């Protein structure tokens, strides 16, 4: 029987919703889906049900929510929700995962995967209400055009404080390719975003403004061997807490990365024209922490986005008066909306972050788009006020706002800019690939496009400028990340698992009654990547798409004067055993 527990109160099933006839079915889990979750399950479902050459905003694309295999028990940092579809931005396979409440609550309803399919015939906006009773469509025209924060407030008032919510902002309603899906964090702030690749636009194309998940009558997923699970959980949690990296993330958050990328000439500066920024200190994690301690009030240097997380790498950023501006303020935003725009004020970056959150957009993609716009002269690098004006254009859905809202590549086309930092149409993250070559390999070979979470290499003990060996390093990281994404584990939980690798198999076996061994992470990761590559092939991708933009290959990054020169032969064999 599926999920390993006979007589379970909570047998997992596939929940299938058709947005055209507003029908809902609970279906048994196909056997080839049973041993997958999160990103791996998304890839499997896309391969089984979505034609690779479909229109991402059309009837045949499906928007799928799949919790990872370990989600449901508040295992530290392991309750993430993966959302996937064919991406309107990359036009390939897309998985984007987020923390917050959604993953946990969706498993408490016994949902293996929530599949949203087809497209409404008539105009009009809806929200889905999920509970143990099933799925209900409710009219949502009164929420249209509202920002994410206002929408979340109204939905919380209507459905109560305990619900989880996944919603889109005006960006998703307008089908912008940079639109994401926002989820409530454990404190009901709607800023845990499934950011990359335009999944918010897919949700918008299905006429859905929000998904409200009320799991109060639900229950935790059944565990085949509770004693063994508890034991493995203890070991894993101890490994996470004791790892020195956890303390670093708790105290400084991901912003601790700024000084590191600055040291390696990898901090994107002024549209990736330099790898070091003269204002790096003012946007560093150390500076931010001191500022938050000084300001007090709502400021929290450590914050958990998911209940039960012991790492607490998130934060609450407060302004000069100590009042919350945005939560979280993360490194990627600090890079792409800070140094990449020549902006050295965390207050400005935080404000920009709030605005893109409210429209419901990926801050990496919009930061890159603004960098391209600055290159074209629409703003001066360093002009924070002007950057806000341009984001306001996106709010207003003006002509300028539209190409910005569709991301960096769209902005480059509209303005005739060559220096556009994208791979497979998706903006490069805050690690310059010329200086961190292993991450460059990830950007070009990941089926997800330029995605650092698919396989970041910057903290590996290697010379990041040495072209040899980077391909293998990236392959190892990509397989592991795909594995963690399938488990529903936050990347930062990875240190705990790396320090106590036996706990992955132990947790899975205890939960599901399986008999897997320590190779399971790699097995899951490889299967996921294989499925994703197959989908991309069907979507028309070839090896020619695995490359950095031409201008970036030509132009060395300063001051380290490095080019991306990983040998082609190494790329070809990087995933070979």
């Amino acid at each position, binding site marked *: 029987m599926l999920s390993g527990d006979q007589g379970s109160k909570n047998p997992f099933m596939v929940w299938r919703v058709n947005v055209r006839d507003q029908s809902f079915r609970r279906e048994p889990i196909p056997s080839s889906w049973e041993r997958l979750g999160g990103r791996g399950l998304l890839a499997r479902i896309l391969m089984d049900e979505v034609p690779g050459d479909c229109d991402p905003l059309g009837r045949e694309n499906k928007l799928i929510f799949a919790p990872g295999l370990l989600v449901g028990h508040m295992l530290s940092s392991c309750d993430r929700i993966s959302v996937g579809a064919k991406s309107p931005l990359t036009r390939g396979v897309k998985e984007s995962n987020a923390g917050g409440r959604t993953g946990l609550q969706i498993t408490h309803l016994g949902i293996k995967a929530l599949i949203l399919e087809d497209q409404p015939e008539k105009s009009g906006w809806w929200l889905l209400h999920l509970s143990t009773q099933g799925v209900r469509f409710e009219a949502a025209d009164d929420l249209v055009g509202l920002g994410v924060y206002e929408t979340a407030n109204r939905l919380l008032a209507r459905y109560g404080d305990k619900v989880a919510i996944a919603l889109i902002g005006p960006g998703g309603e307008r089908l912008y390719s940079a639109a994401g899906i926002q989820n409530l964090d454990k404190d009901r702030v709607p800023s845990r975003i499934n950011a990359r690749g335009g999944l918010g636009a897919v949700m918008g194309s299905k006429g859905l403004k929000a998904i409200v998940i009320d799991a109060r009558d639900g229950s935790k997923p059944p565990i085949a061997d509770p004693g063994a699970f508890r034991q493995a959980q203890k070991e894993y949690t101890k490994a996470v807490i004791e790892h*020195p*990296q956890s303390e*670093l993330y708790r105290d400084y958050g991901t912003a*601790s990365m700024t*000084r*590191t990328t600055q*040291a*390696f*000439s990898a901090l994107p500066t002024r549209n990736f024209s330099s790898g070091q920024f003269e204002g790096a*200190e003012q946007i560093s994690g*150390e500076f931010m*922490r*001191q500022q938050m301690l000084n300001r007090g009030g709502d400021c929290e240097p450590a914050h958990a986005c998911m209940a039960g997380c012991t790492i607490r790498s998130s934060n609450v950023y407060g302004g000069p008066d100590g009042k919350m501006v945005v939560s979280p303020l993360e490194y990627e935003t600090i890079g792409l909306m800070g140094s990449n725009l020549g902006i050295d004020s965390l207050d400005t970056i935080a404000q920009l972050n709030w605005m893109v959150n409210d429209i419901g957009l990926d801050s990496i993609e919009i930061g890159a788009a603004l960098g391209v716009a600055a290159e074209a002269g629409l703003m001066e690098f360093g002009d924070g006020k002007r950057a806000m004006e341009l984001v306001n254009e996106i709010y207003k859905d003006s002509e300028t706002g539209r190409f910005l809202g569709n991301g960096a590549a769209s902005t480059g086309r509209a303005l005739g800019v060559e220096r556009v930092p994208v791979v497979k149409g998706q903006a490069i993250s805050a690690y310059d690939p010329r200086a961190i070559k*292993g991450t460059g390999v990830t950007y070009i070979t990941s089926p997800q496009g330029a995605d650092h979470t698919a396989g*970041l*290499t*910057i*903290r*590996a*003990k*290697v*010379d*990041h*400028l040495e072209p040899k060996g980077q391909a293998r*390093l990236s392959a*190892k*990281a990509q*397989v*592991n990340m795909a594995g*963690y994404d399938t488990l529903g584990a936050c*990347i930062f939980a*990875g*240190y705990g*698992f*790396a*320090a106590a*690798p036996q706990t992955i198999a132990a947790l899975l076996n205890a939960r599901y009654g399986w008999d897997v061994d320590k190779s399971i992470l790699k097995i899951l990761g490889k299967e996921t990547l294989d499925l994703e590559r197959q989908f991309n092939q069907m979507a028309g991708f070839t090896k020619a798409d695995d490359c950095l933009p031409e201008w970036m290959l030509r132009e060395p990054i300063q*001051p*380290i004067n490095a080019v991306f020169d990983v040998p082609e032969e190494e790329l070809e064999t990087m995933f070979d055993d």
Partner: protein
Amino acid sequence: MINRLEVDLPSQSTMEDLLRQLQIELSPEHLLLARNGRVVDVDQTLQEGDLVNLMPAMSGGTF
């Protein structure tokens, strides 16, 4: 909070000597050591005017 520190070391000193002088508690396996923007090992000899960065490292496939 320390932003930047100037350190005097005897000539032919290595990264390891620097870590010892600074009384860094983290073991070298948890550290990424960079000299003038490039990752080096603990036995790397340092020279006058070198810019050294000490950063947290990861291992085990989660970088």
